[in-house]
């Protein structure tokens, strides 16, 4: 059975990637299970999706704990433990990272013995994380790496999933899926189908008997501001809101009130300031500002400008 996990951020088309790959497998005669997994947060939040494909009916269910291929659409997720990118990755897992770094550098960094491939950089300074076609690109690359999906099946799969978006969108995504499919021809079939866990000689679960903790401790409470302060949700951003203070008319409440994260503070002179440590990049403020004083700029571009490495 093939077990494949896609990681990215809400808004990057990760669910679509899993569905394109799922359909491509299905059209190649495989039994398929594909599913996204997300929490209450949407745009910018870490999400993942997964695909199982096998020649016989699939009874495994739930998230994939031991993936054969992990595709990472946004490299900034790799070091975030909660994103779970590296969960269950072994030397038998192939990692495909959308990154301008080299595979060698990733291998050194991760020290997992897992082979790494990188999606080719397309153009300098582009907001890689925010690329609208990154889901299709990831699916196209994955379809080639598994080695059992024909180009024609990928074309049909992209049509199955994206025809509803209209001809232009479809063509745009199809081009990128096929470009990735072709770019990885050298690596076709690199993904090894993992075996099922065997019942003879399995690792015994470390079950424990939970004790009743004091109620004060066992209630699901979060104390004080330190925790939300400490969670740097600014890392989620693929787009950054930038206020043009020439245009801002100091209305003093619209953006700051409607920001779902309370990430805009208004100073005594009515000047709004975005707290970039915590702004998630949802673009609500961009949409609501009456004089259109807030622009959405590429986060990667803005970061590159801040620290030209």
């Amino acid at each position, binding site marked *: 059975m093939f077990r494949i996990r896609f990681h990215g951020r809400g808004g990057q088309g990760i669910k679509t990637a899993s*569905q394109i790959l*799922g*359909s491509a497998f*299905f059209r190649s005669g495989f*039994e*398929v*299970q*594909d*599913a*996204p*997994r997300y*929490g*209450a947060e949407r745009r910018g939040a870490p999400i993942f999706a997964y695909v199982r494909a096998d020649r016989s009916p*699939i*009874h*495994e*269910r*739930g*998230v994939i*704990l031991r993936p054969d291929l992990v595709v990472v659409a946004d490299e900034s997720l790799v070091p975030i433990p909660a994103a779970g990118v590296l969960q269950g990755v072994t030397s038998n897992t192939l990692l495909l990272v959308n990154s301008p770094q080299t595979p060698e550098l990733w291998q050194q960094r991760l020290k997992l013995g897992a082979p790494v491939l990188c999606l080719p950089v397309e153009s300098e300074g582009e907001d890689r994380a925010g690329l609208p076609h990154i889901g299709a690109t990831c699916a196209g690359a994955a379809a080639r790496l598994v080695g059992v999906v024909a180009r024609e099946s990928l074309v049909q799969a992209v049509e199955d999933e994206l025809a509803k978006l209209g001809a232009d969108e479809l063509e745009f995504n199809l081009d990128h899926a096929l470009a990735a499919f072709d770019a990885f021809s050298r690596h076709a079939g690199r993904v090894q189908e993992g075996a*099922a*866990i*065997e*019942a*003879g000689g*399995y*690792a*015994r*679960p*470390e*079950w*424990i008997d*939970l004790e009743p*903790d*004091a109620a004060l*401790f066992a209630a*699901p*409470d*979060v*104390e*004080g*501001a*330190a*925790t939300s302060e*400490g969670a740097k949700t600014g890392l989620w951003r693929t787009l950054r809101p930038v206020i043009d203070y020439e245009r801002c008319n100091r209305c003093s409440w619209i953006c700051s009130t409607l920001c779902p994260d309370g990430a805009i503070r208004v100073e005594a002179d009515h000047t709004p300031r975005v707290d970039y440590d915590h702004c998630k990049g949802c673009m609500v403020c961009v949409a609501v500002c009456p004089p259109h004083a807030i622009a959405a700029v590429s986060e990667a571009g803005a970061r590159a400008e801040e620290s030209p490495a």
Partner: protein
Amino acid sequence: MTRQLLTGNGAAAWGARLARADYVPAFPITPQTEIIETLAEWIDRGEMAGRLTTLESEHSMITAAAAAAATGVRVFTATSSQGLLYGLEMIYTVAGWRVPFLLVNVSRGLATPITLEPDHTDVLAARDSGFLQVHCATCQEIVDTVLIAYRLAEDPRIRLPAIVNQDGFYLSFTREAVELPAPEAAQRFLPAFDPEAIRFRASRPLSQACAVLGASSYSYFRYETHLASLKALDVYDEIAEAFEQEFGRRWPPVEAYRCDDAEIVFFMIGAFATKAREAVDRLRDAGVAVGLVRPRLVRPWPAGELRRTLLRKRAVVVVDQNLSMGSGGVLHAELAATLYGQPGAPVLLSFVGALGGRDIPPEEFFEMARLAREAAEKGEAPAPRLLYTAQELREMRKLQAVAHAERKELP
């Protein structure tokens, strides 16, 4: 017949469409929303006849569903978790009206703490209401079961509303290959609803669901609802037979997998039962005689079928994806009541797990099977276990340390 990839929510919506539901009262809740969105789109585009109305709460939604059913139309609705609980007063109320309609529940763990992922504590809160309750484990099963459940609910011998349950995320958002019944075949299997006398006529006043102020008449009506539910066991078999003839797929009240020569049997409902089935295959590879019993019908409770399947097994591993606070797993207690005092009753082991979608990895099934063999040898069941690992507690402690960072005295 062509197969296509469909989510559990998509399959549920197709079930309603193939059943030609006339009326869909709706209220959104994750992870159910996609069902009503899909139906709304179809109705809007004229691909499905019928009418969809959004209500202001699940309480009103259930009331509207039953009230519409009481006028003799076919009604479909759906909810999940807290939504089901919010409608619970009416769930219990309308079952006694003896009007049939169908509610798809997309299981999701209950608050507190709030979560999105599934367990069955939500739907089991409706267990004693009088609604028939059928649990699905695959997307194919969902569309098929919607048709079966309508026919069961509408049978004049039964006339009870029905809940078809699917698990959030692991069915609702998971695509699998589904063979959709052809509309003509669905129509043959499930003809238009014949409401007989419950047809509403403005010119012919009728008081339905009257109050009674006497214990005997009260008891009569409560017993009758109970007996109708039990009657559904026989009627279900007829309907499953007819379904198989029409579509070639068999949906028994209790699915028994590799049970004939099994000494140890896993006992589970819902989507994660497929994980137990996978574990059965792996254990069989390793030479262990195990099987899986998965009741689809939870109400009525197929006691006879369960006795036939489980008596004279050595041990049964009950994995409850629910928790009755202060007691334990609901299915464990129900199964104990079914098998207690019967000749050849197996040892029953109780595991509670997969709450809020917590995974049950294969190793845990293997370990449960090992403990079951041990218990069978001893003739004594170990204490019920809440599935939780040292690693999970370590992670929990880390979260608690952060959550309580500003509290002075940490324990």
